[in-house]
């Protein structure tokens, strides 16, 4: 699933190179540092990229990735292959480490039910951050991909709550199924669907406000 290159780092002692995720995590459970290095190289970039989207900033990502991998080192023997894939388990740990960072910086209040958050009004969204504006009406070339509006989409995704953003990222960035996302974020599968619905609705509102939604509709 990962096409990220592995970074170079110091060599570590270990045994034979495990070939599957299960062998890898079992070797880590035996405190095999070479296997742990392999796991790190394989998953740290993916976990970090996900956390970067969740946190919306580079600050704190390295720490959250290392916290995640440290938890993996300490609890590798607890991984149950019958409960899901290794990546699901890892992203579940990473997600909660990411939320912890958000709580620490005060960007996320756990006591506020996510799906009852008031909808983002267009004025609020505009006040929060400098939103990219379509300087001219998008032409057919721009609307061919409809959502292919890099800066605007990034801005719109940043307006979503962490939980809505995480559902979008895990679905389209990590190709997770909704039951897997439910395990990662710790909620029922139907809640994942509901969050996706609200996330897409808010994205549509935000993009429409910047002129891109209408352009997409004009495509037909």
């Amino acid at each position, binding site marked *: 699933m990962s096409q*990220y*290159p592995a*970074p*170079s*780092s*110091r060599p*570590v002692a270990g045994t034979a190179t495990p070939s599957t995720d299960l062998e890898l995590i079992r070797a880590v459970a035996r405190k095999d*540092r070479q296997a742990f*290095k392999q796991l*790190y190289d394989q998953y*740290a*970039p993916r976990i*970090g*990229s996900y*956390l*970067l*989207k969740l946190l919306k900033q*580079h600050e704190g*990502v*390295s720490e959250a*990735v*290392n916290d995640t*991998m*440290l938890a993996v*080192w*300490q609890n590798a023997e607890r991984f149950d292959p019958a409960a899901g894939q290794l990546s699901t388990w890892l992203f579940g740990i990473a997600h909660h480490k990411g939320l912890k960072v958000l709580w620490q910086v005060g960007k996320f209040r756990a006591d506020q039910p996510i799906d009852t958050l008031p909808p983002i009004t267009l004025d609020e969204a505009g006040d929060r951050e400098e939103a990219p504006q379509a300087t001219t009406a998008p032409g057919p070339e721009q609307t061919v*991909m*409809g*959502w*292919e*509006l*890099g800066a605007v*989409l*990034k801005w719109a*995704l940043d307006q979503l709550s962490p939980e809505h953003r995480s559902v*979008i*990222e895990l*679905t*389209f*960035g990590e*190709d*997770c*199924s*909704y039951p*897997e996302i439910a395990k990662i974020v710790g909620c029922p599968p139907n809640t994942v*669907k*509901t969050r*996706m*619905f609200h996330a*897409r*609705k808010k*994205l*549509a509102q935000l993009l429409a406000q910047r002129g891109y939604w209408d352009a*997409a*509709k004009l*495509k*037909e």
Partner: protein
Amino acid sequence: MPTIPMDRPALGAHEEIEALLPWYVNGALTPAETATVERHCVECPTCRAELEQCCLLAAAVQRNNIDEIWQPSPGDFDRLLADIDRLEAKPAFVAARSLTLFQRLRDWLGATPNSVRWTLALENLTVAGLLLAIALPLSRPTPDYETLSSRAGQPVAGPRLRVIFANAATMGEIQEILRSIGGSIVAGPTALGVYTVVLPVGARPEPTPAHVLTQLRGLHQIKLAEPIAEGG
């Protein structure tokens, strides 16, 4: 392109299928769910439009992710290993702190030489015995020694005699006389030198007071031997 209804009514079959569209796009539905979505989309223009929007969103998110790949810094893994080394150096100390008093005492005793351990055990046993004796005073045995004035030590049964020994009688002779009649001095001497001697009961053959008196009066170490009446 039709307008996509965004206000969600109570979930029905259409809404259920619409909610699955993002995962139809990323290929993460079960075969049964995939077939259901495909059958529905053939007949539902709204879901087809939603599907198209999902595809565009997926493409945009993936493109955005390619532009924003996070990579660890060269020192990140080394820092992680250093953290692990620090944590793994701690457990002995942390475990010692979390031990109960009993566990710590047991560990300390385990590291103590045998001789010291036995000494400590004996000391503790002695202290425990003393504490027990103090705590349970009623269980102490009655002292064996009693003075002649102690009423509790006196036999209550048996004929009693009043005896005055000769001044020249030695201790050995008195003891021999008492042994020969099986008697015991239970009181005396009074100011006049009178002893009370009680005769045994149940001895076989049981000496009669008259016989004993005859025997005693025949001895030169006895100045006086008289029976004491019952109640007297």
